[in-house]
């Protein structure tokens, strides 16, 4: 992997009157409740480290209160950290002067918000233009750019509406267009789809994935919804009480949960939709009979292929070459929940 686009290094955030003095306590192993009881400070982020590669979707997930929204606001410094570094393209955002930071926000990183945060007094098209205007782009070009992105998110014809006249899903399309119009390489999305109902949410995820296929931005996406995380994330980091408990690709997290917390998290997901055949196959050089399936096909799809062609075994390929074979039995076993065993263990204990 090349140099990461965004590097989070030893980042701490503590809320309270004397946060800087509290870092030492945390480094000495004090927990979040202990810190609150003993010193009246709230631990927001605890020694976070994360390398975010360029041009991919990095999901940061956790339950409410885990610090994920705090973390994303450190990337463009809407929140000042207590200690640590936030390195974007080799430059520490947390050391930037006010003017440099403003340029960073204008040109390098744009943001989409959970509650849309559109300007209620501006029309849809004016909202999309907002970031472009602040960049100082000349009016005719700004208008063209705004129009282009408005159409890309499917809101042609709504230019002169006010945000309050649109549904939640449409408002978030405006939010997305506003963020894309600035042409920033980094897109910060803070629970961008959490306020939408499930159908619209899936819809918006598709919009985002389609756009990403063409734009290849570095997207940092916050969510509390694991299905969403697994669906769109190239990498997933899981936060708990301000601490990063696991970080890896979706396969990794489902197959090797780091602790009970993550195990609990992944219990209810649809494994067939996440796991790829490559993780469950038997390595082999020679192709067997049966259809050829790329190694990164999800099991749900592979099962369907096998059923459709009335075979028990399929050949797994990578870049057109055979790398193994997989049986329907293997696939079914892979998607069975491993927790059934651990639940029994728990009963014996």
């Amino acid at each position, binding site marked *: 992997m090349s140099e990461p686009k965004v590097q989070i290094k030893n980042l701490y955030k503590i809320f309270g009157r004397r946060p800087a003095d509290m870092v030492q306590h945390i480094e000495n192993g004090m927990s979040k409740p202990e810190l609150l009881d003993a010193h009246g400070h709230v631990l927001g982020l605890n020694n976070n480290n994360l390398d975010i590669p360029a041009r991919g979707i990095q999901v940061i997930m956790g339950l409410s209160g885990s610090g994920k929204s705090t973390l994303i606001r450190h990337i*463009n410094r*809407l929140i000042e950290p207590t200690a640590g570094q936030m390195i974007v393209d080799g430059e520490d955002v947390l050391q930037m002067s006010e003017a440099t930071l*403003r*340029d*960073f*926000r*204008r*040109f390098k990183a*744009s*943001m989409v*918000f959970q*509650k*849309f*945060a*559109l*300007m*209620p*007094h501006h029309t849809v098209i004016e909202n999309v233009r*907002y*970031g472009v205007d*602040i*960049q100082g782009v000349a009016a005719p070009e700004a208008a063209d750019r705004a129009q282009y992105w408005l159409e890309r998110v499917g809101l042609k014809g709504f230019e002169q*509406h*006010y*945000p*309050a*006249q*649109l*549904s*939640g899903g449409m*408002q978030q399309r405006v939010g997305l267009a*506003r963020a894309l119009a*600035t042409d920033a390489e980094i897109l*910060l999305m803070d629970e961008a789809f959490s306020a939408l109902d499930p159908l619209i949410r899936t819809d918006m995820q598709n919009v985002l994935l389609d756009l990403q296929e063409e734009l290849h931005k570095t997207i940092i996406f916050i969510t509390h919804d694991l299905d969403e995380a697994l669906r769109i994330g190239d990498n997933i980091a899981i936060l708990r009480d301000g601490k990063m408990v696991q970080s890896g690709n979706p396969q990794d997290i489902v197959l090797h949960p780091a602790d009970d917390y993550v195990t609990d998290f992944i219990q209810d997901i649809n494994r067939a939709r996440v796991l790829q055949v490559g993780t469950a196959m038997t390595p082999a050089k020679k192709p067997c009979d049966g259809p050829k399936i790329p190694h990164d096909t999800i099991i749900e799809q592979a099962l369907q292929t096998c059923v459709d062609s009335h075979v028990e075994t399929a050949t797994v390929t990578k870049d057109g070459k055979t790398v193994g074979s997989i049986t329907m039995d293997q696939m079914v076993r892979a998607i069975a929940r491993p927790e059934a065993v651990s639940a029994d263990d728990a009963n014996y204990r």
Partner: protein
Amino acid sequence: MASDSIIDWSKLTWIDPPTMGRQDLRDVKKSIDGSFREFTRANGEWIEAIFDPLQSFLVWFEKVMIATPWPLFLIIVAGLAYYGSRSWKLALATVASFLFIGWLDMWEDTMATVAMVSVSTMLCIAFGIPLGVWMSRSDRVQSIVVPILDVMQTIPSFVYLIPVVMLLGIGKAPALIAVMIYAIPPIVRLTNLGIRLVDKDTLEAADAFGASKRERLWGVQIPLALPNIFAGVNQTIMMALAMVVIAAMIGAGGLGTPVLRAVNNQYLALGMFNGLAIVAIAIIFDRVSQAYGKRLQKHREGGHGV
């Protein structure tokens, strides 16, 4: 022992509370009066010079209004009323009120009052909005200014007429200042409140896109606070009108002067006519400015949906 104590214990009863003594009290009052008089004598001239242009402007404005042919004046006023409220009814009612005022021979006094109220409202806006913006940005400024505004709104107007008259004499400028002291608090308060009430998420979005402080203020805070600011303007106009009679006591002229004459001589009809003229102007100003404020709001809040 009793003689060298501040409180004369032997005379203390449970009926009257302890006092500082008649002699001391008189000395305190005398020294305050004396020092202020001294201050006035030393600084009165240049302070008066500062307010000179204001007085000339007010006098000029009043003369222009009186010199304007009445049909032209009515057309302008009706136009303004319609522009503000988009209501023909209100524009017609405005014309009717002014015709009635003219019919009862109160035209000139009315012009003087309208000029006074307009100028003082403009000045209140010019000073009040920036002050409100400043307050909204700093809790410390707010904690200092709020008690001052409280005093300005509750202290009886006659009390601050005294130093104003001592300093500037009788005339239009001191009257204008007295009106402003009374009328400026609502616009300051509501500007401060309006800006503080602007949605935090919207402001955060402005920050996230790299808006500078100026872009935040003019692009987000002021526009979103505008309905509140406008409520403040409306209140300021109403309070300025409420001061018309009191201001007349120190030379404001206008509709307040005949009212004062009526009080002194028990002229019931004179007092009623002029009082009703003030009410008519107040209602016009209020309805037009409220309709204008509401129109600003409607434009922004959209229609149905979320």
